[in-house]
Every structure is written in C-alpha cells, then in structure tokens.
C-alpha cells in the first residue's frame, strides 16, 4: 500500500537473504567477544561452519586475494544448495557452480575471467535453472555489504535505475525525503558465512591486508554472521597491536582462522605472488567439456587430501617462487 501510494518500483527477482537488521543484531548479540584462539584446519573450518543451504560470500576480487584453499574444501566436502554472493567473482564462483555446490546466486559478475575469456563450465551452470539468479551491479553488492556492516536494512544509491539489471534484481526505488529525487534502495546483505583471505592474521582473527586494495572485504566481514579467515601467515597478537590502522577485519567478526601459505593460488596475492596463468589456461581448456571438467576436479580437488597436496601437483614451492618473482618484478621480461 505504501508502495502504491508513492509509486515505487521493485525488481522482480528473489531476495535470497533477510535484510532485517534486528534479526542480524540478535545474532551478533550472541556472538562471543572473547579474544580466544580460533586457529583450526581448513577441513574443520568448512565442516563446522558451513552447512548445506547456507548463503556464503567470498572476499577478494574473484581471482585476486581469494581463499582458494577454503573454496576447494567446500567443493571437496560436497556442500550443497549453497547461496552465493556473485560479487566480483571469477574462480571462486566458477568452482562452486561447476561442482554443483550452489543453487542460488546474487550475480554481479560470474562466468567471466576478465581478459582471459569465459569459463564454459560456469556458463553451463548459470544457463541452467538449477541456479536461481538475481542480478545486481558490483557497486550494488558492495553497498549491500556496507548496509549490513552498518546494521541497516537498506542503503540508497543512484545506479541500476532504468535498466534490466534493476528489473531483474530485488532492489526497489525510493524517493529522497529531502530532494524528492528517485533513488535505488538496496537491501542489506547479511551472509551466513564469509570466506576471506588476508596477508596476516593473529590467532584471534584480527586480519590485516597489507598490500593492494581491500575491495569490499572490510564491509563483508562485518556484515557476515560467520567469517572464515584464511591467511598467508599467522602473526603474533602484539604485531596487530603495533599497527592497529592496518586491521581490516576485527577478531569479533571471525569464527575460524586458517593459515594457508600460497592460499590464493592460482590467483594473484598482492605483494606475494602473481596469477598462475599456465594453470588458468589449462583450467579453462579442460572445463570446455564436462568430461574434462570432471577429470580436472578429480585430479586437483577430489584427488588430493588438502591444499598442500594440491600445491605439490601444481609445482610446489618452485612454482610459487616463480610466481613470486613475477609479482616482485624480479623477472622484468615475464608476465
């Protein structure tokens, strides 16, 4: 009725996550604020914290600073019917869609590998009705996390208006009470679980992103009910306190801390290692067919026990040293 009276528009697709801040507040009220040791294994973190049906979101930028080890483990544990925030997502959403882990997705960017082209297996998955879809822009999903981080149910913005991206979203329009102008209203997004990879974290889950951009991760960590924090290295608690400006993720958001050196491979970890372009080429080639895809997943994910087993397969420390050399501009003629 309220909407009729003031002529609001509304996107027609499904809103997958409850935006009510009082429900989120009630959850956050019960979450421990103790500085306790949260270090665990990837296997434990995924099996304890992610349940079939959960709505998850992944930090980083799809193939940059992504928590690959945790995503592989979600695939390996055959989680099913997950919802996903397909925000700037590339290798992360591709793995989850290809492996059949997700049945719904808020899409702002999926399937694509930026200048490398598209993933055929992702495309197959997203062209099927098996994944329920709602579209947004990257900025919209970033602001939906920001709304959650601030304990709101919505934020206004000025994009998506007039487009089919709006029509096939679950956004609404709203009139500014000060200017009478029309804005897009974005519902807050409070994921059940966020999975984020950082450079350094202490055992309590204070996470620092020491190089490169932070993308949406500070807001994502604050909006999510639970957070699995994957880190290149654990550092002493005192080191966090020595540089509190660098803490992008507060411990009180975090439920599990896992130390995974090279944990973003084949992605780029700013300041640590460059993309493994050979691997991506091989991957995108293999997933062109369902058979190729199956064989690849069998070999690199199902066929290894953990991320260390995977690292051996992709060339181990030697390979990572090469990728580090490219990142550090040690070989100016590469990459």
């Amino acid at each position, binding site marked *: 009725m309220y909407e009729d009276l003031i002529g609001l528009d509304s996107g027609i697709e499904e809103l997958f996550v409850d935006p009510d801040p009082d429900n989120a507040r009630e959850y956050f009220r019960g979450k421990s604020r103790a500085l306790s040791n949260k270090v665990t294994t990837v296997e434990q973190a995924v099996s304890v914290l992610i349940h079939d049906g959960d709505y998850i979101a992944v930090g980083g930028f799809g193939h940059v600073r992504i928590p690959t080890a945790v995503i592989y483990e979600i695939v390996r544990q055959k989680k099913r019917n997950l919802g996903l925030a397909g925000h700037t997502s590339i290798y992360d959403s591709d793995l989850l869609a290809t492996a059949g882990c997700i049945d719904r997705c808020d899409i702002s960017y999926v399937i694509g590998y930026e200048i490398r082209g598209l993933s055929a297996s992702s495309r197959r998955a997203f062209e099927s009705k098996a994944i329920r879809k709602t579209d947004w822009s990257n900025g919209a999903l970033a602001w939906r996390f920001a709304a959650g981080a601030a304990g709101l149910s919505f934020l206004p913005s000025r994009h998506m208006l007039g487009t089919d991206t709006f029509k096939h979203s679950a956004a609404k329009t709203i009139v500014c009470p000060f200017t009478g102008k*029309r804005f897009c209203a974005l519902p807050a997004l409070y994921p059940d679980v966020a999975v984020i990879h950082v450079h350094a974290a202490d055992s309590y889950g204070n996470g620092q992103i020491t190089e490169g951009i932070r*993308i949406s991760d500070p807001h994502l960590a604050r909006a999510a009910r639970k957070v699995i924090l994957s880190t290149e290295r654990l550092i002493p608690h005192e080191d966090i306190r020595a540089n509190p400006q660098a803490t992008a993720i507060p411990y009180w958001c975090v439920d599990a801390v896992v130390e995974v050196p090279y944990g973003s491979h084949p992605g780029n970890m700013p300041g640590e290692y460059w993309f493994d372009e050979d691997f991506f080429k091989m991957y995108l080639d293999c997933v062109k067919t369902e058979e190729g895809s199956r064989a690849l997943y069998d070999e690199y994910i199902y066929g290894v026990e953990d991320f260390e087993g995977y690292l051996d397969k992709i060339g181990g420390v030697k390979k990572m040293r090469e990728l580090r050399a490219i990142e550090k501009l040690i070989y100016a003629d590469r990459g």
Partner: protein
Amino acid sequence: MHAEYNPLELLVCIGSRIIEDNSTVFVGTGVPMAATMLAQKLHSPNVILIFEAGSVAPQMPGLPISVGDSRTSHKALIASTMNDVMGACQCGRVDYTFLGGAQIDMYGNLNSTMIGDDYQQPKVRFPGSGGANDLASFCWRTVVITPMDDRRFVPEVNFITSPGYLSGKGAREKAGLPAGTGPYKVITNLCILGYDDDTCRMRIESLHPGVQVETVQENCGFELLKAENLEITPAPTAEELRVLREEVDPDGYIIGR
C-alpha cells in the same frame, strides 16, 4: 595499409586517443585497460586511472590482467575499497569510463548479461554488470570500445545491463540517474560514433581509413545517423603500434598477437 594492424590494435590505438591528460578515467576490463595504458605512455602521462576494486592512479609496471590485480595498485596514490572509488564516481569526480559489452543499441544501452527470453534459463549467459552499470550510471561520459558487427549493434538489446540513453532524451534523468551523464562515443574497428544531441541516437562521426559509410551501416543492425561533417580517422601511427606491441601488451593478451 590495413595489413599493418589487426582490428584489435586499431581499436586500442583509436580508443587511446580520446583519453585526455589530467582527466579521471574509470577503466573497465580488457581493451580499455590497454587503451588507457597506451595513452598514459604516449600523450597523457598524468591521466588518473581508477579501478573498481579500489585503486587510484597507479604507475603500472605491466598490463593488468584484472581491474583488481596488484598491478592496478602498483605505486598508486590510493589503494582503498570498492565503496570508496564508487563513491568518488557517484559524487561526480570521474570524467570518463571505458566499457565493452556483448550488445549495444542506438541509444548506447549495453547488454553484458544474457541472450534469450527466459531470464532464469537464458540461451546465452554472460558475466553480468560487473562494475559496468555503476560506471555507466555515475561517470560523466561513457565511452564504449567494441568491434562492430550487426550481432553486436542491434535494434534492441536483449537486456539493458548498463544504461545508455535508455529510451531517448531525458529518460536517464527521469529514471533517477545523475543529470548530465551518459554515452559519449563508441569506438569501433570501422569508425568513431557519437550521439545526436536532440534524439540521443547514435551517429557516425569519423570513418577509419578506407572505410565507407555503407560498410559501417551494413555492420549495424539499426539505422545510424551521420554527423554533418564526417571526418576520417587518422590511422594508427607506427609509434602507437610500437608502444602498444612492445610496451603495453607484449604478451598479446588484448591485441591477440
């Protein structure tokens, strides 16, 4: 002369010329990254590149593969968040954005989402907006760089992912988009297109060397207007091509060599 460069090299070279020094440019993935980097090396050393993941004004040691990779924040002025740079964009500090897209119509509306009738079960699914809808909504001028053929230049896009002039003059403002923004140029392998002030319809403004109006029209699924004085685009120079091939994209990620 055509044999001297391929269509992608042509696109990148022509695209790079539109980039003004000391302007702020929000860069989409792919061809735009190469075009802006080429401009930076040739004539606009102080162009301020902005990337959606949160980086401002990097001095890139090589072509980024992603708008969020570590090259986009190499010796940058700011390495922050997506919200921060989107805010800069929404509050009117960004002059240009350079985008691509699978389909474009006569009002510059872009489709990078899907082909088909059923949104939940599309014939072809593309990546979606990424940051494109944001940039096309917020930046003052939207430049599209894309190869030209009648499967891309269509009478009606299957899905308006990112707004051009929507249904024509005034439609953006009516929808609530910031005033004074919208499509500016389309740079193709055949010509440079602009928009008619009165109708907001796409028009031919400059033909690339050796290209006829008829060829352009044949490669377009809708009727194009023509600017009063059609210009001839200067061909890519040897210097442009050299810097592009040797310094910007030696691995041929974008230009495919």
